[in-house]
Structure formats: structure tokens, C-alpha cells
């Protein structure tokens, strides 16, 4: 009797069952969510402030800012700006030109390297090669630029002359004057070397995800490595590899220092890749920034905005490709 009384007295009131998070959790989730939004905020601010600064120039130039190829600030006797024209066309062409050269040269090498690392190399050799290539991806662009200028220039010039000699009848390999140094071709080669480790790393990751059972099935049916890769690996990883190549393209388009060092930055339209003149948007910004007056700084901000949007679009496409094709095969 006393026992039961004691028990009933000791039973606590049932705790209220709730799915509502505690105060500490509410704060935690709010803080983390806020922090998680930072990338959105930063990207938004970049677009906003570059637009604000570049607005005046963009309003005057409108569409001709990207279609015209004239970048001039004329000053009158008192040093005031008499007339200014800002058109980014030539540098946009230069940006695409050098980036495309980089992709055309770099991506096949990178994809074949990734195939080698995934299906040929093994054991410690593979480990060592993978770390070495990952390390290369961390090299600063300054290093690539100077190395390209001092070491690569000589042999690249040799190749450029060879190309010009035997393929000179194709317009883009022709040159108006025999100046082969510091050409978009050489800048493209340096950019190719810069994107090879990035594209290799992504392709290798994609190839690594190829389902083992399909690889083994192909081998069991008597496939050689080549036919296995053609039948299983390529269809499975095609989209991801294209995405990786786009990522490389984005990197190559936004590169500043390496291009500035290697290329002879001149404001002119230059389709002839072997001729030593040209530039890209990023190197133009670096070149003009030093002596730019307020109005030209605004124009450079607008140029930065164009570059930012361009790389954003390229990166978006690459991200979509990697994520949609990277996870499923045929």
C-alpha cells in the first residue's frame, strides 16, 4: 500500500512531446543557414557593385561596349577627358581565342592522361602521379606565366614557325609580319598547361565512378582495353568530361597574370594566332588599371562585369553537365 503510494507520487508528469527544435538548435540552424547564404550574397554583391560602377559607361556605350573594338581616351590640353570610346570587342575575341586554343590543346592530353591514371597506372606509381598532378593544379598562375615566358617561349616559337611554314595557307596560321614571340598561340599553350591538371583531376574522378561490374562484364565478353573504354567508360563519362573541359575553358578565360606575362598585350583584333599581339579582358584590366582615370576605371569595372558574367555562364553549364552526367551511365 505504501509502496504504491510512493510510486504514484514519484511518477513525474509526462514530458510534452514536441518536434519543435530547442532554442539552441534554432539559433544554430539560423546561424548556419545565414553562413550558407554567404556565397549567394557575395556573388550578388559582385554583380551589383560592378554594375553600379560600370553603369555610366554601359549606359553610354550600350551594346557597342561588347561589339565595338575601340578603347580610347582622348585628353584635351588641360588633361581633361575630351572624348572616350570603350568597346571590348577585340579583347573578347582575344579571350575566346586563347581559351579555345587552351581547350583544343589541353583537353585531349588531359583526358588521355586521366585514362592512363585510371586504367593503366597502378600502385605507388599511380599514387605519386596523382599527387604530382594535383600539386600542379595548386601552382600559382604567376609561376606558369614566368615559366612560359622564360622556358616555353623558345620551343613554342619553333612550333609556331613550323605551323606557319606548312599551314600558312590557312588564314588563322598566317602572319602579317614574322613576329612569332608573345603570340596568342603561346598564351594558349601556357593556358593549356594550366588547365591540364584541372581537367585531368575531374576526368579521373568521372572515370573512377564507372561501375566496376560493367567494366568486368566488358572484359568477360573478351573486350580489349580500347573496346572496353569505348563501350563503357566513354558513354558513361562523356558528359562529365565535357563539363570538365568547360570548367577548364572558364579558368582559361579568366586568367590574368599568366596571359599578361606571356602575351604582348596590344589593343587590336588579332585572328592570326601565331602573330605576337592580342590580349584578353583580364589582362586588359591589369594593363589599363595603372594609369586609368576615374572614367576609365568605370569602363574597366564594366569589363570586369562582362568577364564575371561570362565565366559564370561557362561555369554554370559545366556544373550542370558534371552533375547530370557524372552520376548516371547508359
Amino acid at each position, binding site marked *: 500500500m505504501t509502496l504504491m503510494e510512493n510510486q504514484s507520487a514519484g511518477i513525474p508528469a509526462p514530458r510534452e512531446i514536441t518536434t519543435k527544435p530547442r532554442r539552441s538548435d534554432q539559433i544554430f540552424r539560423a546561424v548556419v543557414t545565414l553562413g550558407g547564404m554567404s*556565397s*549567394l550574397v557575395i556573388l550578388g554583391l559582385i554583380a551589383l557593385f560592378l554594375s553600379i560602377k560600370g553603369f555610366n559607361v554601359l549606359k553610354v556605350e550600350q551594346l557597342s561596349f561588347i561589339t565595338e573594338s575601340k578603347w580610347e581616351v582622348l585628353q584635351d590640353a588641360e588633361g581633361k577627358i575630351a572624348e572616350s570610346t570603350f568597346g571590348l570587342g577585340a579583347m573578347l575575341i582575344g579571350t575566346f581565342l586563347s581559351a579555345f586554343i587552351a581547350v583544343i590543346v589541353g583537353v*585531349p592530353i588531359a583526358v588521355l592522361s586521366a585514362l592512363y591514371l585510371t586504367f593503366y597506372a597502378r600502385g605507388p606509381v599511380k599514387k605519386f602521379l596523382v599527387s604530382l598532378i594535383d600539386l600542379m593544379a595548386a601552382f600559382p598562375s604567376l*609561376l606558369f606565366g614566368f615559366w612560359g615566358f622564360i622556358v616555353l617561349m623558345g*620551343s613554342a616559337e619553333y612550333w609556331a614557325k613550323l605551323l606557319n611554314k606548312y599551314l600558312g595557307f590557312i588564314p588563322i596560321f598566317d602572319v602579317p609580319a614574322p613576329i612569332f614571340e608573345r603570340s596568342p598561340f603561346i598564351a594558349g599553350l601556357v593556358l593549356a598547361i594550366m588547365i591540364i591538371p584541372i581537367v585531368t583531376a575531374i576526368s579521373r574522378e568521372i572515370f573512377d565512378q564507372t561501375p566496376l561490374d560493367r567494366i568486368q562484364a566488358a572484359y568477360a565478353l573478351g573486350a580489349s582495353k580500347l573496346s572496353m*573504354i569505348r563501350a563503357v567508360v566513354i558513354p558513361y563519362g562523356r558528359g562529365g568530361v565535357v563539363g570538365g573541359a568547360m570548367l577548364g575553358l572558364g579558368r582559361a578565360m579568366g586568367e590574368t597574370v599568366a596571359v599578361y606575362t606571356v602575351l604582348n598585350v596590344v589593343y587590336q583584333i588579332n585572328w592570326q594566332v601565331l602573330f605576337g599581339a592580342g590580349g584578353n579582358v583580364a589582362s586588359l584590366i*591589369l594593363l589599363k588599371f595603372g594609369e586609368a582615370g576615374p572614367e576609365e576605371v568605370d569602363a574597366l569595372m564594366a569589363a570586369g562585369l562582362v568577364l564575371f558574367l561570362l565565366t559564370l555562364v561557362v561555369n554554370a553549364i559545366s556544373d550542370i553537365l558534371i552533375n547530370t552526367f557524372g552520376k548516371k551511365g547508359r
Partner: protein
Amino acid sequence: MQSTIPTPQTPWATSIQQRLNTAGLILLGAALAGAAVKTTGLSGKLGFAVSFFLIASLLIFIQQLRLRDLAAAKDSLLSSFASLAIVLTLIPILSIVGTVAVKGYKGIHFGMFTNDMTMASVNDPVTAGGLLHALVGTIIMVGVALLISFPIGLLTALYLTEIRGNLARPIKFLVQAMSGVPSIVAGLFILSILVIPVTQELTGLMGSLALSILMIPTIARTAEEMLLLIPNELREAGVALGATQWRTVSGVVVPAAKSGLVTAVILGIARIIGETAPILLVSGGADALNFNPASGPMGSLPFYIWKAFLTGGTEEAYARAWGGMLILLIFIVVLFSLARYLSGRKVA
């Protein structure tokens, strides 16, 4: 009856005979390539390399075709090209490291760690002046950038792995997009939002802010990968013991991912330590020692190299630039090896 135990066989392995054959073919290819360089108009190492590769892969192709069939011969062609690709990838790496080591060695002297460039110009003998100011500037700028980026990067990673809200997918995409922002745009952004309208002064702090924009995505992505490695059982165990999510994350998940988070920090530092373009735009770039990031221009290793390389032109200036480059490269290699070592240890 005597039973014999068969010795294990590996009929698929390449025999010594096959290896010798291949080696012989490659040697023959080298000899033929040498002959081709001697007799025809091809010149130098490049000509030799090209003809060697073409001849050797052709010889192996013919051998496979003779011994086996067309499929095997084509297969050998793929392995030739894949080997060529990896060699082409490795040549620049080795050449870069070799060039920096050989040329940078001349630019290294003991006094460079105790002097700055206030009393020396880039064209003076290498022993004059040093890069103390650059070293200090880089360490301060990277340190401040780290203080800004690590919390933001970690919170982003936690949002992606622990909260997994509706916005996780778009945020992941935006982080990816942010890592593709050209470094010069980061510099322009800091100019447009702070330097021109507010401070009107180029300082080390502005450099740090620009570097943060490049550092946050690296830290966020690496930290996310590392947090995903933490087994879900640990989180469930924490919650099952009655811990709130905050206690689970702060007491279980983050400590378990400690070495991974250190890796994220190290990779973030390696990403920005050599960044040049934003530094050139916003940090001013000084030749004198400056410990205060909030006022006055600040030197940095990339700026030191850039200035010596572009404004000099003499042997001394180049030696100085390569010396600075060697120091920078050593930093990057050490950081990278450290990250490798830490992430290789897996989670605690």
C-alpha cells in the same frame, strides 16, 4: 597414388620474353628516330621526341598486328597515346620545378630573410635587400583572409551537410560558381565596394578581403567533402543520446572531422598564397616592412616577384624574382604535402 599440387600459373601476365620484345622495339624506335633526325631536316630534341614516339608506337602496332590481331594492335595504340599524354603532362611540371630550383637557387641568400627592399632596388646585386617585408605581408594577408574565410566556409559546409535545407542544391552550385570567379574580378569587386567609395586607400586588409573571395569556395568545398566522410552513425548516436543538433555537431561531428578541416584550411591557403592579380589591384604593394594591415600599402611575395620580374630586366632582378618564386613554391609544396598527409590519415 601420388597427388601433384599444380604450381599457380598466371598465363595472362606479360612474360619476360614479351617485355624484352617491347623494350627491343622501343630501342629500335629510338635508333630509327635518331637516324631520322640525322638524315632529314628534323632538328633538335623536339624532332627526336616526335619521331621517336611515332616510330615506336608504329613498331608496337605492327608487332601486335603480327602476333595477335587488329583489335590488339588498336589497343596498343591507345596505350601508346595514353603514355604520351601522361609524359606531356609531366614534362611541364618537372620543367617548372627544375627551372625554379636551378634559377631560384642563385637568388637565395641568408640576408633576404632579415632585410626589406627600402634600401635596395631590384637591379642591385642579389645580396642587397631581401624579402622580409614580402614574407610578413603575405603571412598577415593570408592570415586575415583565413580569419574571414574559415568561419564562412565552415558554415557553408555545415549548411550543405548538416542542415541540408531546400537551398542546399542551389548553394552548392553557387559555391562552385564562386570558385570560378576570375581572381581579377575579386580585386575589382573590392575596389568597387570598399576602396573607391569608402577607404580611398590601398591596404593589406583590402588584399585580404579580395583573397577571401577566392578562399571561401575552396574551404567550403573541401570542408563539405570532409564532413561527408563522417559516418552518419556518429550523428545518430549523438542524437540518440539526447543531444540537440547543435551539441551533436559541435561535440561529435566537427571534432571527428578535425584533421579534414585542417586540410581544408591548408588547401585554402595554398590556393591564395600565390594569387597575384587581386594583390596588384588592391594591396598597394610596398617595399618597406608594414605590420598593420589596416593602413598603408603592404608588400607580398607575389608582388615582390612581379616587381622584380617586370620592372627589372637585369640578371640580378631575374635572380631575385626566381629566388622569391622558389620560396613561394616551397611554401606551396610544404602546404600541399601537409594536406595530403592529414587527409591520408582519414577521420579520427
